[in-house]
């Protein structure tokens, strides 16, 4: 799929020419998406706000390098996930979200509507699981991590991923398979190391 001749591409070209109204349109179009991705990973509103600002600043400064090989959303998604991981690295967060990091509102919301996890599990267990998966995803390359999140979190099909990334479907399948295997290996290494560390 050619991403160069879409309405979105025209918008990108205007931003590349430093049209501030076009940039505003991009921010307004994607701010909810970016904010949700960050919130999904960090579960903290203040951090999400800070990182979302950082993501759009990065988009502003690096959009001249956007080469239309992927869709704009895919590119923004990758930047957003990378910024989250940069943030986690910088803060050296080992245990991702302690209850002290939670606002009351966040905790209630998470308790009330956690779609992918077993609601009968105590919140500590769910947080430990989230911590584990974030650690496992940190072992992947930026590209593999984004692809995995686009598949599992955003729910895109292989065909959609091929269109979004500009890769063919077989390449997407192979990449996903290898990524899943890497995650399994990383998980088995972590579970073997943990008892020794104690």
């Amino acid at each position, binding site marked *: 799929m050619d991403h160069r001749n879409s309405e979105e591409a025209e918008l990108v070209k205007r931003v590349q020419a430093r049209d501030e109204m076009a940039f505003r349109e991009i921010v307004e179009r994607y701010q909810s998406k970016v904010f949700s991705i960050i919130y*999904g990973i960090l579960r903290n509103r203040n951090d999400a706000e800070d990182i979302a600002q950082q993501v759009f600043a990065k988009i502003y400064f690096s959009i001249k390098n956007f080469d239309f090989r992927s869709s704009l959303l895919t590119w923004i998604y990758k930047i957003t996930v990378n910024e989250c991981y940069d943030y986690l690295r910088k803060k050296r967060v080992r245990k991702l979200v302690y209850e002290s990091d939670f606002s009351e509102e966040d905790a209630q919301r998470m308790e009330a509507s956690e779609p992918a996890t077993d609601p009968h599990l105590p919140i500590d267990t769910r947080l430990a699981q989230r911590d584990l998966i974030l650690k*496992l995803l940190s072992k992947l390359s930026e590209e593999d991590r984004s692809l995995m999140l686009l598949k599992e979190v955003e729910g895109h099909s292989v065909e959609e991923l091929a269109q979004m990334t500009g890769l063919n479907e077989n390449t997407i399948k192979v990449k996903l398979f290898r990524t899943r295997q890497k995650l399994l290996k990383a998980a088995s290494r972590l579970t073997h190391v943990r008892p020794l560390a104690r």
Partner: protein
Amino acid sequence: MHREIYERLEDVLSGTPPDIAVKHLKQCQECRDEVISMRAQAALVRQLKPPVEVEPRAGFYARVLERIEAEGPVSIWNLFAESAFGKRIAVASLALALLLGVYLVSIERSAEPMVAGPSMQTCLAPACDAAGAPVASTLSAAISGEDAPGVVLSRLDQEPPNDQPNHEPNDDMLVNLVTYREQ
């Protein structure tokens, strides 16, 4: 993992396995275990889905602009970094500076033996030909056509005056020819 599953893994994981995959999974414990692990792992990854759609607070765009201003102050260097024309100017300037540098270094190297040589005194002394006229002016006169070349050469062949006892005429002439070329 066997080919029957490997080629259809995404369908298997998404819960719509084709018959051939179902049949293989029934027979193959190894593939079954791996698929179960991958399903569990996919469920873990899905925990990163936000529970509800969240929006930033009002005024988000203004705060993004503030961040951009804070992170990227407008400077003259941005003109070079951001526009294609600016980049060309920067590259051309760098190339010119490099050429000038190479030229200056090569000039200094060719001048080094003259400065460091034993006849430094004679270099500093006024250079004159046998008739007392400066060699440089004699040569320039020859070049400009005031004197015929034969006249100039015969003047240069004459002995220097005796009032400069330590003067080596050939050295002087060589030194002054080099100096003249550089001028």
